[in-house]
């Protein structure tokens, strides 16, 4: 098993004349927390969307777990083991918290229409396993007491946690978090930090897009900086923090 889990090779994406990504190459190693930072509009989310198949890159590609990722197939990305959360939370609002996580099991289960209609023993067993796994995951992110509430009625912090639980339900090898701490206060951010650290210790590699520089520098093993769609540097936080180009990108030259 190779040490590198995900490798981006010269990924490019244009929107009309705007070059959102200019030949970005980077590699994420197994078991690390990898931070992706950059000023607003630097192309962080575009990179995410290319990787998870929501956008088709105009150039380059990804190798995940030794195999190339098929562009334009979001559901296959999840099947291969890439799960994500969204910058602006995207939950299934009119479903309960538990159901949201249960949907996350979709890709790892297989009951079809006929199984559902006949409700044979295999389907019933699978359904019970889905439910149990979902309850466990709600415990894991500590929102088990909100299991039967509609997702849209959860507090902001709990919605963030629920989104992570739903992503974890797909049994990802790589969990991509798009600004998970946005809009959180200091205490919530601290709790989130513990949660992310816990997920890594339990064996999932994490890619973290974040604006909170303190959180990124404290949590990540390695950090990449994007500016105007181009990779500025990819290194350990201590080096990145002192890099002149990074300081310029953030503070303006």
């Amino acid at each position, binding site marked *: 098993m190779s040490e590198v889990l995900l490798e981006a090779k010269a990924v490019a994406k244009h929107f009309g004349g705007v070059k959102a990504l200019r030949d970005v190459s980077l590699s994420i190693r197994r078991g690390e927390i990898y931070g992706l930072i950059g000023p607003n509009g630097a192309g962080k989310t575009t990179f995410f969307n290319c990787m*998870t*198949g*929501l956008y088709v890159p105009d150039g380059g590609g990804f190798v995940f777990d030794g195999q190339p990722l098929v562009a334009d197939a*979001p*559901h*296959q*990305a*999840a*099947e291969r083991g890439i*799960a*994500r959360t*969204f910058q602006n939370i*995207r*939950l*299934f*609002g*009119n*479903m*309960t918290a538990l*159901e949201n996580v*249960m*949907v*996350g*099991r*979709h*890709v790892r*289960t*297989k*009951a*079809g*229409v006929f*199984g*559902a*209609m006949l*409700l044979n023993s295999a*389907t019933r067993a*699978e*359904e019970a396993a*889905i439910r149990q796994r979902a309850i466990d995951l709600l415990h894991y992110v500590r929102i088990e007491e909100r299991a039967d509430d*509609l997702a*849209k*009625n959860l507090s902001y912090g709990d919605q963030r946690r629920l989104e992570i639980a*739903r*992503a974890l*339900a*797909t049994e990802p090898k790589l969990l991509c978090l798009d600004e998970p701490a946005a809009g959180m206060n200091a205490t919530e951010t601290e709790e989130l930090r513990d949660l992310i650290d816990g997920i890594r210790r339990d064996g999932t590699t994490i890619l973290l897009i974040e604006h909170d520089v303190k959180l990124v520098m404290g949590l990540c093993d390695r950090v990449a900086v994007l500016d105007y769609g181009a990779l500025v540097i990819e290194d350990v936080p201590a080096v990145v923090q002192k890099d002149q180009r990074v300081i310029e990108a953030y503070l303006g030259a």
Partner: protein
Amino acid sequence: MKFEHFFRSTVGIGLTAVLLLALPFIAALGGQAWVRILDFAILYVFLALGLNIVVGLAGLLDLGYIAFYAVGAYTWALLASPHFGLHWPIWAILPLGAGLACFAGVVLGSPTLKLRGDYLAIVTLGFGEIVRIFMNNLNAPVNITNGPQGITLIDPVSFGAFKFSGTTQIFGFALSGPQKYYFLLVALAILVIIINIRLQNSRIGRAWQAIREDEIAAKAIGINTRNLKLLAFAMGASFGGVAGGIFSAMQGFVSPESFSLIESIMILAMVVLGGMGHIPGVILGAVLLTVLPEVLRYGVGPVQMAIFGKMLVDPESLRMLIFGLALVLVMRFKPAGLWPSPERKRELTEAKP
């Protein structure tokens, strides 16, 4: 909530069963016409539950649902009538009708996969019209559907020697044709209710709801939205096909007139008015919207005579006026439907300050 518990208790099931058994005999006191209305109410329950899969669960606004009903109806009509001289048995035609409707569902579904909401509604509306116009014009150069005259003398449902048309003596009871169809339809409706409940609480049903709630998030967690949307169209359409077959046999006559846009809209209204995505609500909506216009049909005239001593307004126009007004009032005061799901209801009450 209390209601749902009641229906799950033994007493509740017993009472419902007795009521369902007694209904056709009670209705017969007012004449066989009322039994036929009852039959249609249940047929519409069947149709509305089929559409509920597409609209209520998967959130795909389908205004051409009647097309699948038409496919099922014409399949039966063509294969069991003197028109082609074919008289196939029910166990061959009904699955074939469901299969053809299912295929039509996939045909409709595949070009509309990227469409949602208003856009999808317009395309499905067009599809419904196309099917009707085809039925209307497929009488030349080769006469397939007999055009606007429709197909007559269609075989009734029969199992061996047991025919569902005409009166039969069973255990000293005289059962009329509509009464026999009633029991057949109730059995089918119970089956479709069970299938609906099971689908709703299944892996597939949850994936449909996820697509309804947020398609991008659904894709991101690995749901193949293309296949699941097609599946929703196919499932809904199959139910429509079965209903169409029974309709054809029950009526003994089909013509393109029965499959107009207004029918699609009525079925959609049943789903929305009853409580979208909530099975008891959809059943209530279907029964009310079938029975209410008939009650008005027979009631409006005599009531006018009793109050004013003469007919002031043509009963037929007044009937639709009252009916339309009732729909508007329900949507004004019960926006989530007459009997919404507990979650929807809770959310609406919580939303109030």
